[in-house]
C-alpha cells in the first residue's frame, strides 16, 4: 500500500500531476470523509424521498379536498423552484425561525446542522417528483385488477400493499431511476451550505494544493462511478421485477 501511495508522490515529482489525496494521509482522510458524506447524504435522501413519494401518492388520492390541494401545492412549489434556492430557504429562512439550543460552550447553535437541512431539503425536492412518479404508476394499475381483489374479499390496505404498490412500482421504476440519479447528482448542492461532502472536501484540497485541474478530473470520475453503480443497481432491480406481459 505504501508503495502504491509513494508511486503517486513520484508521479507528482516527475510530471507535476498532483493527486495529494492519494499520497498524503491528511488529504486522503479528507477525501474519504467527503466521499462517505456524499454516500450518506445520498442514501438518506433516497430513503426519505421514496417515503415522501409513497405517502404523498397515497395522500393525493385522499377523499379530503384540502389534503389533495396541499399535496398539489407542495409538488408545484418544489418542482418549480431551483433546488439551490430551496436549500438556502431551509438553511437560512426556516432554520432562523426555529429555536436554538446551547452548544455546550456557553453559546447558542441551531437545532439542525447543515447535513440535516441538506437531507430535508433534497428529500422534499426529489420527493415532489417521486409523488408524481408513484401516482402515475398507481394510475396505471387497472381498476379491474383491483376489483378482482375486492371480489376475493381483500381489504383496502391489503390491496394497496399487495396489489397496487407492487404493480405501480414496476410501472414507475424507469422514471424513478431517472429521478434518483438526479438526486444523487444534486447532493453536490450541499456544498453551498458547507456540508463536508465530496465536492466540498475536494475544494478544500484544491485550495491547499492548487491542483484544480486534477481534482476536477477526479470528481467527474468518482461521480460517474457512483451514479454508474446506482444505475446498475436500479436496472438490475428493474430486470428482476420485470413481468411477462405486464408493462412496457
Amino acid at each position, binding site marked *: 500500500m505504501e508503495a502504491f501511495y509513494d508511486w503517486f508522490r513520484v508521479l507528482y515529482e516527475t510530471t507535476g500531476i498532483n493527486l495529494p489525496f492519494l499520497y498524503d494521509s491528511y488529504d486522503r482522510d479528507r477525501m474519504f470523509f467527503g466521499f462517505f458524506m456524499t454516500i450518506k447524504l445520498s442514501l438518506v435522501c433516497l430513503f426519505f424521498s421514496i417515503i415522501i413519494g409513497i405517502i404523498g401518492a397515497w395522500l393525493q388520492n385522499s377523499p379530503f379536498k384540502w389534503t389533495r390541494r396541499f399535496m398539489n401545492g407542495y409538488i408545484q412549489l418544489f418542482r418549480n423552484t431551483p433546488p439551490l434556492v430551496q436549500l438556502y430557504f431551509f438553511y437560512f429562512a426556516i432554520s432562523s425561525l426555529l429555536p436554538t439550543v446551547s452548544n455546550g460552550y456557553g453559546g447558542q447553535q441551531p437545532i439542525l446542522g447543515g447535513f440535516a437541512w441538506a437531507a430535508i431539503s433534497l428529500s422534499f425536492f426529489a420527493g415532489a417528483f417521486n409523488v408524481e412518479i408513484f401516482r402515475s404508476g398507481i394510475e396505471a394499475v*387497472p381498476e*379491474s*385488477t383491483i*376489483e*378482482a*381483489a*375486492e*371480489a*376475493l*374479499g*381483500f*381489504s383496502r390496505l*391489503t390491496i394497496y400493499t*399487495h*396489489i397496487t404498490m*407492487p*404493480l405501480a412500482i*414496476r410501472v414507475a421504476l424507469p422514471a424513478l431511476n431517472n429521478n434518483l440519479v438526479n438526486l444523487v447528482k444534486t447532493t453536490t448542492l450541499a456544498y453551498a451550505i458547507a456540508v463536508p461532502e465530496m465536492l466540498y472536501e475536494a475544494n478544500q484540497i484544491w485550495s491547499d494544493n492548487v491542483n484544480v485541474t486534477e481534482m476536477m478530473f477526479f470528481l467527474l470520475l468518482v461521480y460517474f462511478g457512483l451514479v454508474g453503480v446506482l444505475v446498475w443497481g436500479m436496472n438490475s432491480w428493474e430486470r428482476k*421485477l420485470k*413481468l*411477462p*406481459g*405486464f408493462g412496457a
Partner: protein
Amino acid sequence: MVWTDTDPMVSIKDLHKSFGALEVLKGVSMDIMKGEVICIIGPSGSGKSTLIRCVNALNNFQSGSILVEGQEVNDPDLDKLELRKKVGMVFQQYNLFPHKTAIENIMMAPLLVLKDKKEDVEKLARGLIKKVRLEGKEDSYPGELSGGQQQRVAIARSLAMNPDVMLFDEVTAALDPETVNEVLQTIRDLAEDGMTCILVTHEMGFAREVADHIYFTDRGVIVEHGPPATFFDAAKDPRTIEFLGQIL
C-alpha cells in the same frame, strides 16, 4: 328468520340500479336455489354485468333487495368480507394478479383474507390446479399463459375461497374459439359437483346444456325466463325471438 338451504341461495327482488340519470336495472327479480345453475342472456348493455356485480356488492343499488343466504346485501352495515367469502366471481378479462404465479394467484386470498396456514393453502391450491387441469403451470406467470389457461386459474383462484355461489360474467367472451371449450368444461365440472352458479353467457349451446333456468334481459328488465327446453324452443316474447334468431 334463519336461512336454511331450502330457501333460495340468492334472492333478488325488484332490483333498481342507476348510474347517475341512467337507469340500468328497472326492477329485476329472480331466485336461485342451492345447486342451481342459471344463465342470464341478453343484448350487450342490457345490464347483465351490473346485475351480477350487485350480488357481491361490487356495485351498489338504489332500491330493492338481494339476499345471499338470507343476508341483505343492501344493508349499510353489510360486512362485505363475509359476503365475498360466500360469493366468488370470475370476470371476462380474467383479471389475474400479473405479479404472481398461477399458484400464488390461487393462494393469495386464503392466505391474506382467511389467514389460513400456508401448508394447508398450498395443498388446497395444488388440488385446485389439478381440478382445472393446469398441472405443470403452477409457476407460470399470467403473462405466460393463454387466455383459456388464465381464465381457469381465475376460476381456481375464486374457488380457493370455498364460495357457496359463483358468478361468471361472460368468462369465455374474450377467448379464442379453440380455448372456449376448456373453460366451459371447467364450469361444467363445477356445475356437476353441485356448485350454485350464476352465469352471464353468449354460449347458447352451453346454456341449454348446463342451465336449470334461463333469464333473458333487455334494457334492464327480465323479458322472459324458463327452463332451457321451453325457453329455447317456445319463446313467446318477440324480443326474445329476435335475439335468439340473431345469435343462433
